[in-house]
């Protein structure tokens, strides 16, 4: 699964978007644009990434930039996949 697809799946399941995330492009804005994306959801997404990839995400790796767009989140996933 590509990082973009994984980002879509994780977003859709975590925010319960009911398939809406399938239409997201890398340019789709996230933080501030999707009401469901609150602080709890950010933590859930980071946790889902940790558990799906079997990696640990450090404090300093989580920033608002990571959640700016779908593409930014996918890049983050790609980096963590190594």
């Amino acid at each position: 699964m590509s990082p973009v697809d994984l980002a879509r799946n994780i977003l859709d399941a975590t925010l319960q978007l009911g398939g809406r995330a399938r239409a997201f492009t890398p340019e789709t804005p996230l933080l501030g644009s999707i009401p469901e994306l609150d602080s709890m959801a950010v933590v859930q997404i980071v946790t889902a990434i940790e558990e799906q990839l079997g990696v640990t995400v450090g404090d300093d790796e989580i920033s608002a930039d990571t959640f700016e767009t779908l593409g930014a989140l996918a890049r983050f996933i790609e980096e963590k996949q190594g």
Partner: protein
Amino acid sequence: MLRPEVIEGRSGRLLSVVHAPGAVPAAGAIVVAPPFAEEMNKSRRMITLFAQAAAQGGFETVVPDLTGTGDSDGEFADARWDDWSDDLERVLAAARRRTGRAPILLAIRSGALLASSVLERDPYAARALLLWAPVTNGDRFMKQFLRLRMAASLSQAQRETVADLETALRAGAPVEVAGYALAPALWTAIVASKFAPPAPAGGGRVGWFEVAAAEPYELSPASQKSAGALAQLGWQVDASAIGGAAFWGTAEIAEVPELVAASAAALDGMR
């Protein structure tokens, strides 16, 4: 059929809600080891759905409010890990007296850590385990909990890190996270706890269910390791991952019907 049950805890009244089947006596009792803080509120819908399915199979489900939570006595800020294991032991013992057999424990998230500590003290306290997305490492769990506060300050210039919050707790200062006052003593005890039950006293069946947000639906590496360790000890472990929302943390109350169905099916092997 719902009925409240009140028992005496060591520092106040403990309230449980019992979902009873129509037929009396019940085929057995299932006691819920609740998840932590807001995760419990988010899980209540799933617990009710499960309890209804279990009732059809003749089981009663006991959902306790631990000391300092829900309608039981005490304040969350004063609650201690020891109180909670003691609460769970008392609720298990009461269910056992009522049904004449050791209950099945349904441990949700960090409830698994609590279940583990109860079984360490008394391996006979429960006859089987159902685990929902069990937390196996208290330290990692607390870091994820503290992250909630960090996430709230994501867009601010002055960002708190999890490490800052841990330093405060280590120095003895309570930290408020998402409306819950986390006491240093509670934090210390959870950080030190691991999911590592002793060898089973009886048949020892375990239904281990993980909820995966995205495909592939597989057990996480950490869960595979813990489930393997349980099997080594003689537990009969049936572990699987189910696709669905992480209902204990979603913004809206979420349901994972497949988890309810799979858990109810697992009960048949635990009669």
